[in-house]
């Protein structure tokens, strides 16, 4: 038996440590551990609930916008405050563009190198690569000239002896198997993605005033002044500037990102057989369409044991089942206490031991839905949408599976989505769905403004005594919920149950492992010194440990440690 520890030691302290025991070339046991205490919710205690979003969006630089929105929604829920339509649409468009940016960046910059071998690009024929790319979709950036230019760029990099941005890739690994031309297509699109993700971010900045860390939300609505006749406010001119950006982003998502994911998946069909792990799925309805937040563009709900026929919808933030179902267990987390506490009663009192396989081993608590470990993320979102009969989710899921089938020459089915590759495919499906909805939300906002509605805000008023609320958002990494208790207008308790907490959950009081841990079981390991397969499965969840320390370390310490014991 071999034990492998993957422990990034970036910037003083790591974020996510993975320990696996390997026997017979397969993972037999796994532990996911967060190595850094944060507890930054405690900063909020005693503060004005109207200010909370300003702090919570600084939890994290990757998921900044989502924490702002979940926070105001939690306070609005506690006050039963309605939100003007313009504010709903502006928030929706912001959240969609944030998600499109995030999904594209995740695939190309964070996880593509798990599947793409950059050094193989040198063997690629640019003409052939161009022909393959053009057979997959219509896209202006697939010419043989473009492919040849990228190949030359890679050659210059390899000749320099430095692999630059690809130095941390496991190139040459026996588990890499894309044809040279597909590697070249992927690297070309990796470079193009750099440009297109910016356009999505520019829409966020135009609505939010600034990115990262938007400035335009408020408890009760948004602070975007609307006046079609003023140069200084949100007007028709600005709306059409946004539309021009959306018209660039949408084709990139549908004609580049989606086909790329399907192509990679088509060459690694065996990875539809690994990484299912926990198949209880949770997602929440999002993109509200009315002032009371009771109608949503995308459905959410709970699926037990991967059985889509048992899908139970969540109706909204007032859904009684949802409000009761979430608990957090500290048995194996470095906090006092053990039993599953509801977030409104949640405690964050640290109790550090060292890393103990059978004891406490993580700073992440173990969230449970109706007592069960539960997977969140685009896969949960897509499966819930599929089960609920959402037309866009069905259309894009079927289209993606058809594309994978054509390349892999095996019939890809929705059942195969319970897997490592299924999470990547679902993320691309979700992005395609959101790209269509971006245009729809833009239209709703524009039409509403042209009807003469310029309302963006309802004044919140805080009652005497104690109130509690939950705000949720289906974020790029999955279900995010903020739980707030307000006493006489001041925050008394605040807990953020973030997507990565669900997925990176440690074992609970019953010893049941969380989604990362369960998904790693039976993954093959070709070379324990280079555990690429572990990274493939962990990256497929798009892990994001809230609130990084962004310190630059000039000493050149190795940025991650892989230890084989």
């Amino acid at each position, binding site marked *: 038996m071999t034990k492998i520890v993957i422990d990034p030691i970036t910037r003083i302290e790591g974020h*996510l440590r993975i320990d696996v025991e390997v026997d017979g070339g397969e993972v037999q046991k796994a532990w996911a551990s967060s190595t850094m205490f944060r*507890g930054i919710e405690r*900063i909020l205690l005693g503060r004005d609930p109207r200010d909370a979003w300003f702090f919570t969006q600084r939890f994290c630089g990757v998921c900044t916008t989502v924490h702002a929105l979940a926070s105001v929604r939690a306070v609005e829920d506690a006050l039963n405050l309605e939100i003007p339509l313009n504010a709903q649409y502006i928030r929706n468009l912001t959240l969609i563009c944030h998600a499109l940016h995030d999904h594209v960046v995740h695939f190309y910059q964070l996880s593509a190198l798990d599947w793409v071998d950059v050094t193989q690009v040198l063997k690629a024929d640019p003409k052939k690569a161009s022909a393959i790319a053009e057979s997959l979709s219509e896209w202006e950036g697939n010419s043989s000239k473009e492919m040849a230019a990228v190949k030359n760029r890679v050659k210059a990099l390899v000749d320099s002896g430095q692999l630059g941005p690809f130095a941390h890739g496991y190139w040459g690994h026996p588990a890499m198997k894309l044809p040279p031309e597909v590697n070249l297509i992927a690297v070309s699109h990796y*470079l193009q993605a750099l440009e297109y993700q910016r356009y999505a971010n520019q829409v966020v900045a135009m609505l939010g005033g600034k990115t*990262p860390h938007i400035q335009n939300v408020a408890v009760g609505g948004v602070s975007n002044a609307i006046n079609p006749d003023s140069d200084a406010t949100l007007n028709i001119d600005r709306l059409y500037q946004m539309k021009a950006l959306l018209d660039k982003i949408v084709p990139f998502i549908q004609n580049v990102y989606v086909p790329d994911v399907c192509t990679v998946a088509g060459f690694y069909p065996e990875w539809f057989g690994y990484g299912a792990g926990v198949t209880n799925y949770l997602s929440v309805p999002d993109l509200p369409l009315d002032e009371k937040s009771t109608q949503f563009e995308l459905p959410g709900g709970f699926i037990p044991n991967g059985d889509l026929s048992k899908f139970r919808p969540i109706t909204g933030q007032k859904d009684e089942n949802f409000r009761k179902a979430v608990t957090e267990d500290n048995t194996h987390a470095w906090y006092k206490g053990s039993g599953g506490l509801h977030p409104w009663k949640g405690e964050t009192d640290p109790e550090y031991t060292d890393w103990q396989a059978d004891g406490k081993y993580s700073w992440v608590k173990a969230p449970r839905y109706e007592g069960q470990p539960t997977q969140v993320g685009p896969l949960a979102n897509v499966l819930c949408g599929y089960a609920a009969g959402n037309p866009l989710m069905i259309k894009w899921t079927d289209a993606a599976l058809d594309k994978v089938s054509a390349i892999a020459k095996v019939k890809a089915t929705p059942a195969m989505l319970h897997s490592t590759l299924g999470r990547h495919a679902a993320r691309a499906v979700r992005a395609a769905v959101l790209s269509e909805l971006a245009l729809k939300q833009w239209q709703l906002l524009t039409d509403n403004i042209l009807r003469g509605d310029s309302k963006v805000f309802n004044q919140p008023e805080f009652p005497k005594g104690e109130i509690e609320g939950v705000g949720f958002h289906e974020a790029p990494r999955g279900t995010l919920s903020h739980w707030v208790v307000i006493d006489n207008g001041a925050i008394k308790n605040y807990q953020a149950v973030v997507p990565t907490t669900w997925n990176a959950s440690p074992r609970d009081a019953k010893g049941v492992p969380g989604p990362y841990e369960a998904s790693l079981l039976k993954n093959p390991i070709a070379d324990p010194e280079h555990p690429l397969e572990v990274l493939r499965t962990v990256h497929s969840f798009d892990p994001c440990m809230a609130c990084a320390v962004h310190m*630059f370390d*000039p*000493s050149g310490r190795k940025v991650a440690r892989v230890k084989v014991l």
Partner: protein
Amino acid sequence: MSRLAIFGIGNILLGDDGVGPAVARYLDDNFDHDDEVIVEDLGTPSLSLPGYLIEHDAVIFIDAVAGDIPGTIVTYTREEIVAVEPGIRISPHEPSINDALILLDFAGAGPRDVTLIGVVPETLDGGVTLSPRVAAAVPGAAQAAVAEAARRIGGALVRRVVGAASQRPAVARPFTW
């Protein structure tokens, strides 16, 4: 497109990691500049950092850097930054300034002219205030940024003079970012 961008980087909820944004705020409060220059608290941009760099000719970063004596100000060149080799990424938080510059080098885009003004932190524990030694280093780090900016564009940042009419001392903004 700007000729010069000055970016404070860091997480303002994690003690001295917020020194970059604090210096950006200090510059914003005390100095004027024209449209060719932008000063921004970039917070924790992580993987989207390359996108923020593309459109500028020159960039000056202010960030917390590893070191022994809290409050020390150290300046790094572009060459020194990119010499730090990126490692395996688990989460989107790992990429740093060096990753962003290395990626842009490969893409053939972004500023060639980059300087990092680093401040050594004392504590990165949760909290929204800087430790006394790091707080004391903020004006010095800001002055270093002003000097770096002036080397590129003469008089890029000009200290704001409090209007004689008001006869009031400059009042610090409330700490609300």
